[in-house]
């Protein structure tokens, strides 16, 4: 089979796995679409350093199984290759995700102003803690459907992990251009980001379970928790 006439570039361009080509100084020569989104969450230096660290000893390609986690991106392997001294490439392999098996309990969803739930939970948090809090919220967020009771539990438990943090920064905003498919419908995403200098991780499993039950994606990190809440309108 003659393959020389085939232009492979679009295949790489539209590959869901990030692919980046660096020059010998670590500057990006080429990156595909998936990489552009990835660089919103990780620096190019970090990826370049990984490429160099896992490069094959001689010219050629080497695939290494390793676990990388950048926010919502989880990779289980990388392939690093170089054919000359000028450039080095890295391809990161997305870990397949389990599709959520939770069916939405529509009866429990009530149109709610999320800011009210957040304010109420912060008032509850303040009855037990005196840590300084900063809150940056979008008051224009439209009301959307939430399981008020379960979401409040999730918020309470999430905030509780910051009970001893020196100061806590909370932001609530609409993620522009990002969507999630829920029961065949494309829904916008509201992101609640809580970060501090550190936090307890003792309730992470409960938080994860509660988030899954309410169709919320949660990212539990060492000093922050991010909740991606689907903005279900009807």
């Amino acid at each position: 089979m003659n393959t020389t006439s085939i232009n492979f570039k679009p295949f790489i361009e539209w590959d869901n796995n990030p692919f980046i080509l660096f020059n010998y100084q670590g500057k990006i020569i080429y990156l595909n679409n998936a990489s552009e989104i990835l660089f919103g969450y990780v620096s190019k230096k970090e990826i370049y350093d990984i490429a160099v660290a896992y490069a094959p000893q001689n010219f050629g390609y080497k695939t290494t199984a390793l676990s990388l986690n950048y926010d919502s991106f989880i990779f289980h392997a990388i392939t690093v290759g170089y054919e000359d001294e000028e450039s080095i490439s890295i391809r990161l392999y997305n870990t397949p995700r389990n599709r959520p098996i939770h069916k939405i309990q529509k009866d429990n969803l009530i149109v709610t102003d999320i800011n009210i739930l957040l304010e109420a939970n912060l008032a509850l948090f303040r009855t037990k803690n005196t840590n300084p809090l900063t809150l940056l919220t979008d008051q224009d967020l439209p009301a959307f459907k939430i399981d008020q009771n379960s979401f409040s539990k999730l918020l309470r438990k999430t905030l509780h992990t910051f009970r001893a943090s020196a100061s806590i920064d909370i932001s609530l905003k609409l993620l522009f251009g990002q969507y999630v498919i829920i029961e065949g419908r494309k829904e916008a995403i509201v992101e609640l980001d809580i970060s501090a200098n550190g936090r307890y991780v003792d309730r992470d499993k409960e938080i994860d379970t509660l988030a899954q039950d309410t169709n919320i994606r949660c990212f539990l990190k060492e000093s922050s928790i991010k909740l991606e809440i689907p903005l279900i309108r009807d």
Partner: protein
Amino acid sequence: METFFTTSDKIHNIIKSFNLTKRLFVSSIIIGEANIGKKSLAKHIFPNAFVVSGDNQKKVESALEDYDEIIITDFEKLTNQTTLNLDNKRVIATANYIGNSGRIDDMFAFVYNMPSLLERPKDIEYVKDIFIKKALSTLSVDESIIDRDKIAINLSNNSKSLEKSIFLHILKFSMDSEEIEDILYNHIYENLDGNDGYKQYLALYERPLIKAGLKKFGSQLQLSQVLGINRNTLRKKIYEYDIN
């Protein structure tokens, strides 16, 4: 409508949180010692809620079927908490203590811990004033007789013991000799027994007589004259009753 007063920041935050969620369908629980105002607070914020006590499991279960807004008092008394379905209801529970904190954590969206009266000094003064006014009116005692700072308040059982201690204090100013005699009569009638009754119960009268007399007249000499008894007899009784 139930009124509720507090200067406690903690309780103000609880009220704020409740006010924000009062139109939402979330389950909340207020936990704290007995007689600190949990039920009053819940009734103050949710005046139209159906109120049911946790000492009757079946009533609570049927209330949850019939009403969307319910106050469950004494939640700790429920025989089976896990069978209750609190989803999509506006439930406000109150409990004096929590048996299983994990269960409470899973059942309720908002878990509030209400501080006791002892932790709310300004609230004590406010509640104390209310009880003093109530006692003065009930017992028909003139306010000018009472020195409110001299009332020894008891907070061991929060508002209940506080109210009792205030009533007992003011009661002392409301009784005439006949009523005091009646009280002594009842006490002696209920308790008189043994073989040393005369001496034992005479002390009920003699001890306060000498204590009050000494306080009022200062010296034993003057008191013996007022009482019309021999100074040595008085001294002997002071020693006998161990009065300083």
